[in-house]
């Protein structure tokens, strides 16, 4: 059996080196084509969506007569059910396709919708005492709401399992649910869900309390603790704010086939998502995407507007219809990260050993309520009591945001631990190291990483106790955090073809969401075949190629590098079999190195790559590799990483303005394919982390129910001048490389908020409870400290 294992360190010529991204020249020069840049050969129609001005309203009627009659309007589609309820401002009501954007906008304005406005909530402030209700079984309406509100599947499944349903879902109804977007897993869970009598009065409280969870004996731990530290921590709802907004261009080359250019993290998955609502087989749907301008977890699914573009195109005789979201819609409806806040108490002994955790947490993920953050994060504190209240409100749906729930959990947990350290006058590094045995399997990694990070930050030299590094108006401070993530490779298939003329191509239905997937693929294929990277021709981003998983949860590098490695090894073995006779050797004696195929240990018996490939014959070599592939060990990917980050900040004590001066990120991720891209991933994550720590917040107005800062002036993103010195160190070598490839998209974005929050507390001597750390919050915290 061929040896699929990754080459050993001395055998690698490309893997683990610093190699520049293949797509960088195209991106910086503007040659890279995004979905917005796609211009079909024939005349295109412009789609526009009419959106609800109300945060919650019943749709009484939708009259599109005037829009239909407008010259230049080619198709109109009503999206909402009459009698249905919209749950957030900006929800899709109807759409038109017209010959130009102006006409489409005019047509949208001509649609007459009658709403019955309903009471709504957009706040995620701490639930009033006694307001929360225990969750009950789901009614049919609840299920419709959950589907319409895009409740995350895992949360949906857990809810059904725990609380059951208060109706009997017949197959006909299940089919309708499916048409509305419910997955097979959800349908299955509905079939299996336990039946309970409907609960209560019918009007639901927006505050839904999850059952309290207890572990160990928290009462005893707190009674016996020599120190108890208390605090409030949290982080606001933020949006994904993809620089390329969501959307697609759909066209029907014939009445049975759909061709979609869509901004997606999930090229291979889109056809089956669109098939049901459009009533065509997934096999008849082709999806293409060259480049994507950001997804961050918000682009896993074909969205309602994408389905609508396809429907409008069909109505318009198959002419291409483009719907890309405007900036305000992008911020209002195309994804938000749930908020999470908590009142926390931590119990410890005098030496800093943590013995107990109590938390009352709350937060919102929009109409679905949102999941509870995994607190205490990383540290499994022996005695715990936790209560979480989910707020179901009308701010719009939540979507996965890089490392879902982890950044929030880090802010809460690391903040609480940092306050404990301050209370007992301990350097946080010492407190973290003291309790590292609570972190589980990555304890040793964290230990090593603390050593590296501390040196890179010069922590021991620079650190001062809280509030003791103030000169004039400027306070300086250091903070730290740690994090973990899985990152095992997803299911992936890849074809490697070696042609008789020596050309090599790699075909895989994955996507490069900006993490350097193209570069990874080329490095793995080139390394395996002993060729330079330029010799590999890549074909990705199309459903014509073998299916590969969605790019989310840091699963892409492990998945695609494994499938590509396996395919390339298989192709190489097939080549050896063809070439062996010419070299008077057995295939097992051959190797590919330096653009040759040669006999191992006998440099005299060698063919150039081109000569070797001429032995292939008329039919190219084609090999399919897949991940996972349990029949062909070893496993080439792995799961579980740890990272440590430190922040150095300065705070203007008179204005409350925070500047980050330096950040250090130390991270492991198994075998690194391209060190430069891995480091870049961390730079990007730190940049995004600084942005959400200091600036980002989805500001909702209770009086109007709308998002007030759905633009890029007041939805602030960090700019070039706001990014300080970033120092990244990747853990490599023995103990890391042999674990196989692990993804890196999520881990480094988890800790920046926590580390920066802790650094600000260290600088100014008091905790600023919530991110973003805006001047009003910093000044308020300083005011409270002065008043205390």
């Amino acid at each position, binding site marked *: 059996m061929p040896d699929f294992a990754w080459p050993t360190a001395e055998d690698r010529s490309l893997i683990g080196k610093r190699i520049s991204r293949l797509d960088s020249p195209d991106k910086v020069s503007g040659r890279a084509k995004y979905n917005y840049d796609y211009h079909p050969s024939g005349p295109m129609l412009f789609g526009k969506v009419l959106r609800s001005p109300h945060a919650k309203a019943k749709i009484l009627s939708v009259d599109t007569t005037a829009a239909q009659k407008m010259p230049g309007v080619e198709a109109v589609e009503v999206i909402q059910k009459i009698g249905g309820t919209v749950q957030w401002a900006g929800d899709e009501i109807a759409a038109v396709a017209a010959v130009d954007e102006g006409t489409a*906008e*005019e047509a949208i304005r001509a649609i007459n919708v009658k709403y019955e406005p309903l009471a709504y909530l957009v706040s995620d402030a701490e639930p009033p005492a006694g307001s929360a209700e225990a969750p009950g079984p789901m009614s049919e309406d609840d299920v419709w709401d959950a589907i319409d509100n895009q409740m995350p599947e895992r949360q949906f499944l857990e809810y059904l399992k725990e609380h059951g349903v208060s109706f009997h879902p017949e197959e006909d109804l299940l089919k309708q649910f499916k048409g509305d977007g419910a997955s097979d897993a959800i349908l299955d869970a509905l079939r299996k869900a336990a039946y309970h009598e409907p609960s209560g009065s019918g009007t639901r409280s927006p505050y839904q309390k999850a059952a309290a969870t207890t572990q160990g004996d928290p009462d005893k731990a707190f009674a016996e603790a020599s120190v108890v530290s208390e605090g409030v921590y949290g982080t606001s709802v933020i949006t994904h704010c993809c620089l390329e907004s969501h959307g697609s261009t759909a066209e029907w080359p014939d009445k049975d086939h759909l061709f979609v250019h869509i901004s997606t993290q999930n090229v291979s998955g889109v056809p089956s998502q669109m098939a049901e609502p459009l009533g065509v087989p997934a096999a008849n749907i082709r999806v293409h995407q060259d480049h994507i301008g950001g997804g961050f977890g918000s682009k896993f699914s074909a969205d309602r507007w994408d389905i609508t573009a396809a429907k409008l195109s069909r109505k318009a005789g198959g002419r291409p219809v483009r719907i890309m979201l405007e900036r305000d819609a992008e911020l209002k409806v195309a994804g938000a990260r749930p908020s999470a806040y908590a009142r926390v108490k931590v119990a410890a002994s005098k030496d800093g050993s943590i013995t107990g955790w109590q938390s009352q947490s709350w937060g919102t993920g929009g109409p679905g309520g949102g999941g509870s953050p995994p607190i205490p994060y990383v540290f499994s504190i022996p005695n715990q009591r936790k209560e979480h209240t989910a707020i179901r409100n009308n701010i719009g749906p939540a979507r996965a945001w890089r490392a879902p729930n982890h950044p929030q959990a880090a802010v809460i947990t690391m903040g609480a631990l940092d306050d404990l350290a301050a209370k007992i006058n301990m350097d946080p590094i010492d407190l973290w190291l003291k309790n590292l045995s609570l972190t589980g399997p990555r304890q040793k990694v964290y230990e090593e990483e603390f050593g590296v990070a501390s040196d890179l930050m010069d922590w021991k030299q620079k650190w001062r106790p809280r509030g003791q590094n103030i000169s004039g108006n400027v306070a300086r401070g250091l903070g730290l955090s740690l994090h973990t993530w899985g990152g095992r490779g997803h299911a992936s298939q890849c074809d490697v073809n070696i042609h008789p003329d020596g050309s090599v191509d790699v075909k895989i239905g994955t996507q490069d969401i900006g993490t350097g997937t193209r570069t990874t693929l080329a490095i793995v294929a080139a390394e395996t075949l002993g060729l330079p990277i330029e010799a590999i021709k890549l074909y990705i981003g199309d459903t014509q190629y073998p299916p590969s998983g969605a790019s989310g949860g840091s699963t892409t590098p492990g998945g695609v590098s494994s499938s590509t490695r396996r395919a390339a090894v298989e192709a190489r073995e097939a080549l050896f079999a063809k070439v062996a006779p010419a070299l008077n050797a057995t295939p097992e004696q051959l190797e590919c190195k330096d653009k040759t195929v040669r006999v191992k240990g006998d440099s005299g018996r060698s063919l150039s790559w081109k000569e070797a490939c001429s032995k292939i014959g008329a039919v190219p070599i084609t090999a399919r590799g897949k991940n996972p592939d349990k029949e062909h060990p070893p496993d080439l990917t792995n799961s579980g990483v740890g990272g440590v980050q430190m922040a150095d900040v300065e705070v203007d004590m008179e*204005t409350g303005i925070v500047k980050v001066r330096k950040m250090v990120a130390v991270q492991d991720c198994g075998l690194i394919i391209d060190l430069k891209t891995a480091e870049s991933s961390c730079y990007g994550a730190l940049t995004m982390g600084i942005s959400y720590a200091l600036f980002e917040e989805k500001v909702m*107005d209770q009086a109007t129910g709308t998002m007030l800062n759905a633009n890029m002036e007041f939805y*602030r993103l*960090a*700019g*070039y001048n706001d990014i300080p010195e970033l120092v990244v160190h990747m853990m490599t070598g023995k103990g890391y490389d042999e674990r196989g490839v692990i993804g890196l998209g999520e881990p480094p974005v988890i800790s920046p908020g926590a580390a920066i929050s802790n650094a600000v507390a260290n600088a100014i001597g008091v905790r600023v409870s919530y991110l973003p750390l805006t*001047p*009003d919050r910093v000044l308020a915290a300083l005011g409270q400290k002065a008043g205390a």
Partner: protein
Amino acid sequence: MRAFEYASPTSTKQALSLLGAASGGALVLAGGTDLLALMKDDIVHPKRLVNIKEIRELDGVASSSLGLRIGALTTLADLADNVNIVKDYSALADALNEAASPQIRNMATLGGNLCQRPRCWYFRNGLGLLPKDQSGKDLVATGENRYHAILGNDGPAKFVSPSSIAPALIAYGAKIRLIGPNGKRELPLDKFFVIPKTEDQREHDLKRDEIVTEVVLPPAADLKSAHYEIRQKDAFDWPLATAAVVFQMSGSTVQSARVVMGYVAPTPWLSEEAAQAIIGKSISEETAKAAADAAVQAAKPLSQNAYKVQLARVAVKRAILKAGGAA
């Protein structure tokens, strides 16, 4: 964006007749950095745009013993590079360099900067300049007012004046010149900004058929001046509070003073109280602080913006110290 007529006159006379002819429905287009955004967001929908960029007499800076005459079409980038401004009007130069982004400064004109509409997020969401709900309740007073006015906010207007250049110009005693169907008029720049009382009033003393032609700055070679801007981001961001100060010194004593705050009120806010507090004193941490306290003494913060009182105070203090020669 809705359909509109487009006219591109080459003389002020033509421009005025084009403005007047489309009664109520014409707007002046210069750099377009604000107007086009307002049109895209459907906040304004003019029937006609009158592009004045082809009227060359409105562009450029002229220097004489009487000071500077700055044409309304001069871009912020050109102004920031102007040798006279760099040499004699350092508060203005600083304000220009901190305004918007390099790309916007290349397009935005001085006239447009003064006539831009407030950034109030209720206004920009189409809820009006003096936003109210259906029952007439003031949306800002009880709503999301963290960036709104702390001074001059007794009436229905609670937005803040958006020009970060105007306070510096006013501190130097700038005058603005306008032209309309009935001829030219000139007024002190601080009088050009008014607080609207009703939704159909504007925040400028500018009639629908008038055009800003130039801004006149008195000589400033022997003055001390400084501008200080507080904002959250270093990169492109709107300020949270600004202050511009101009002092006539007699030895080390302030003989006369103008202190103007930005982003604190519906107009640039000329603080007579701060000026009086510093006149007759030398510039020191103590006198600067006293003047800064005087500047915000009348402040009445809304439910969420008490912190802006502190920011305005700090901006004034730091501007005074900067003018006095501190870093």
